[in-house]
């Protein structure tokens, strides 16, 4: 059997399993982080070498997993997210118990995401999702004594469990109707399915509900702000930049490969969900007082934007969706890591705690401004470039015949404008407002490793914004690979 498609996952899984053993010898968080980073680096190298040697798509076991342009890109994105999160964690969880398990779980969660990206089979996809979910339930509850964290983990677990049940039920219906779990075969079978149309709709509903929970699609989003708020900020970064994107990847695969033949049946539902998700997310973000909750709602809204790609379903739209996932991983991941970094310096999580931040740490205020403006889609930053591709795709679809798609662009754009308000408000607090009187005006001392993690995100956001060509090309190749 050809295992080359699995090398990155195998490497990372080995590191994850070895981590507790390594932890027996040395419990230092920095050392463990370094080992984990080495694992992530090796996995990256494996992906890189695969494409560098021009091996093309590698298929594992007659089509359970594939390493092609699509999965390669997403595996890279998930690995980068893991890299940044681990880098920021080294200092963030310093001195806490169970550091080895923490890193082990992050690596395992990443393995799950990579499996989802690589899967060509509904069942492998499900297993990937479960590996990630179960690891992240534990990670959210990592600080056992923290009431908020425990509550968040419980909520996350219950909602996650229910959503898994829905997904599994949907999958079993699909299997029962088509007799296969491979996406490509389902795609063929669904197209020729004349009887039991109602059953396939039921399966669609189940899967939409199941995935809807995972990507926090409205109206299945209620858990997200609580969990994002309660989890340790580095884990929130991973949830927003990694696991949620995994859900979207799963949706890409399910809807655009397996269910493409009956697109007319579900495109309107997804379109309405997309508009609802972005609108509710943005409106709810407007008057949040906690920065983490605000970013959580903004994350919901961004998932709504990405759903546009599924509703439109063209190669160009999918390019936009993938591109936005890529940029959003940096923007949102970076923003949550800034929150984590500032928490180390005892700055709270209320938005008002960021008053006069520019005076205390120019770098942090500048980075946050860049990331927030990028989230709002202000040029010439990465978020603008990806929104351009994403929001213009419905117009292309509209001019090509389905006029109603244009409303997706209109909704996306109105929402972008709304979102500017709450992003700009944070910037205003940081730069315009003066420090509260009881706060001493002195430069903050922040851990170097966390600043490095933030710097990676900011540099990525700026350079993707200035030279998006290369990245659009990558995303286009990925979209082609998926739709081929």
């Amino acid at each position, binding site marked *: 059997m050809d295992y080359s498609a699995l090398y990155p996952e195998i490497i990372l899984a080995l590191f994850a399993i070895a981590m507790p053993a390594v932890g027996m010898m040395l419990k230092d968080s920095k050392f463990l982080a370094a080992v984990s980073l080495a694992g992530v680096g090796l996995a990256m190298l494996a992906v890189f070498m695969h494409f560098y040697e021009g091996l093309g798509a590698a298929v594992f076991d007659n089509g359970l997993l594939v390493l092609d342009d699509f999965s390669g890109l997403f595996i890279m994105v998930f690995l980068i997210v893991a890299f940044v999160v681990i880098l920021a964690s080294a200092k963030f969880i310093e001195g806490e118990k169970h550091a080895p398990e923490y890193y082990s779980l992050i690596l395992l969660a990443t393995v799950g995401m990579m499996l989802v990206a690589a899967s060509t089979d509904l069942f492998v996809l499900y297993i990937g999702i479960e590996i990630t979910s179960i690891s992240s339930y534990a990670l959210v509850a990592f600080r056992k004594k923290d009431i908020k964290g425990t509550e968040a983990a419980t909520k996350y677990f219950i909602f996650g469990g229910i959503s898994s049940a829905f997904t599994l039920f949907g999958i079993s219906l699909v299997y029962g109707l088509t007799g296969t779990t491979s996406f490509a075969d389902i795609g063929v079978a669904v197209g020729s399915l004349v009887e039991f149309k109602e059953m396939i709709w039921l399966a669609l509903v189940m899967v939409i509900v199941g995935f809807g929970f995972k990507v926090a699609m409205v109206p299945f989003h209620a858990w997200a702000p609580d969990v994002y708020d309660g989890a340790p900020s580095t884990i929130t970064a991973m949830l927003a930049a990694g696991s949620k994107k995994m859900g979207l990847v799963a949706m890409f695969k399910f809807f655009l490969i397996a269910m493409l033949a009956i697109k007319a049946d579900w495109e309107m539902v997804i379109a309405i969900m997309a508009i609802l998700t972005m609108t509710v997310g943005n409106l709810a973000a407007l008057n949040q007082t906690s920065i983490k909750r605000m970013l959580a709602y903004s994350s919901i809204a961004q998932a709504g934007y990405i759903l546009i790609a599924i509703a439109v379903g063209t190669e160009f739209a999918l390019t936009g969706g993938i591109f936005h996932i890529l940029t959003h991983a940096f923007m949102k991941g970076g923003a949550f890591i800034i929150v984590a970094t500032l928490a180390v310096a005892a700055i709270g999580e209320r938005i008002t705690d960021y008053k006069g931040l520019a005076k205390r740490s120019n770098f942090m205020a500048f980075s946050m401004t860049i990331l927030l403006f990028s989230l709002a889609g202000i040029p010439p930053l990465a978020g603008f470039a990806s929104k351009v591709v994403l929001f213009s795709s419905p*117009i*292309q679809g509209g001019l090509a015949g389905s006029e109603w798609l244009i409303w997706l*662009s209109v909704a996306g754009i109105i929402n972008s404008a709304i979102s500017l308000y709450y992003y700009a408000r944070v910037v205003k607090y940081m730069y*315009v407002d003066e420090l509260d009187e009881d706060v001493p005006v002195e430069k903050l001392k922040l851990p170097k490793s966390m600043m490095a993690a933030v710097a990676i995100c900011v540099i990525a956001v700026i350079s993707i914004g200035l*030279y998006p060509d290369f990245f659009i090309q990558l995303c286009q190749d990925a979209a082609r690979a998926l739709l081929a």
Partner: protein
Amino acid sequence: MLENIPILSLLLLFPLIDAVVTFSLGKNPKAAKMSALVFSAIPLLLSLLMLTEYTQTAGGYQFVESFSWIDTLGIQYIMGVDGISVPMVFLSTLLVFLAVIFSWDIEHRTHQYMALLLVLELGILGVFMALDYFVFYIFWEVVLIPMYFLISVWGGPRRSYAAIKFFIYTHIASLVMLLGIFALYFEAGSYNGYYSFSMETINAVSPFFSDTFQIVVFGALFFGFAVKMPMFPFHTWLPDAHVEAPTAGSVLLAGLLLKMGAYGIIRVAFPALPSGAEEWQLVMVIMAILSIVYGAVMCLAQKDLKKMVAYSSISHMGIVLLGFATFTELGIAAGVFQMFAHGLITAVLFMMCGVMQHKVGTRNIPRLGGLAAKMPYAATFMVIGFLASLGLPGMVGFVAEFSVFTATYDAFGWLLLVPVISVAITAAYYIWALQRTIFGPLTKEVDTEHIHDLYWYETLPLAVLSGLIVLFGMFPGLILDYIRPALGTVVGLLGGI
């Protein structure tokens, strides 16, 4: 020799470099001011060089530079200027240079203030020179950020509200415009067989676009530009932003940012969607006249000098749109000239508002009076500015407004009476406002003992602007000779009335 210098890119490069340099001179306000002064002088010199090197009769775009940027989407960095943009580029570099001088007394976060002025210059120049819709849009948005900070950090008491209102209001408008640009991009792509954001590529196939498409997309673009200009009823952000903005911010806002809207109509909306423009002509005329009348009437109701000037801007930008909406060469040329004229005049007016605020401590017209005795120089410039604004012959505003009205009469006949009468009302009110602020008995409402006349950094910009107002009023050909040869293409597309 000069052919080889990428003059337009240098125009963009120097403000950018200087914004960084000035910002990093944080500890030393004096050095920040000097560096802002020197570096904003360089673009001014470059634009003067451009004025002399530009071949007026040739028409078309000159000094064109083009590099590919985002190949996958057909986006190129194309810069070029024609007779419409040359005066605007000159105006931009001039006003920013003068605004830097006028802000010499800024003590609060000087380095940031100066750096933001220069970023603003970068954005504005980019808008006036870009020949690719995508790049155009990027510069268009880049302008918002420095202006947002200028208002929200250095503004008046309600600065927070005004800044966010300005930011979101104009951001929505630009997003709607962006939708229109996307539509153009895909529609032109389906005719060309390849996708490109280049203005020339898209405009070349614009006459083939279907009428429905043109009407809808023109609506989207026009909305974006009308908010920026701003035209009634999309103007509500303007008085707030102006009243709260610091003086230099107001000068650049009224002098340049509003011009971006008008420039967008003539550079983007008309050539890309000529028959859409024809369908929208009536709406444009009505909006233009409403803006002229509304701006004038609102002027009458204002007690705050600055708010009055802000409303007069709406009125004057209405004249620009009226000129454009005639679709004649004379009307459009006069509209562009009015953009230039209003840029000079409104700068003087807003600087005078700033002077009043600084010296007297209030801009409330009823509380002022007889100040000519205390500050004769300031009074002189104020009279020049007000007279120019009301359209006194011999000054630059007169030429522009008179030509617009001539073109309006040719195109629409006696409809002309409405704007003319409202302009006449404003004129009367201006005179009255002058009388109440600087003439008559000295006010007792405020402490006039310690009023100091203009400092050098206030006199210099005002003198330069006043000189130019008279110069171009006497010899409007100096600017019109650039504008007129450039209009052939757009007038031809509009049916060449």
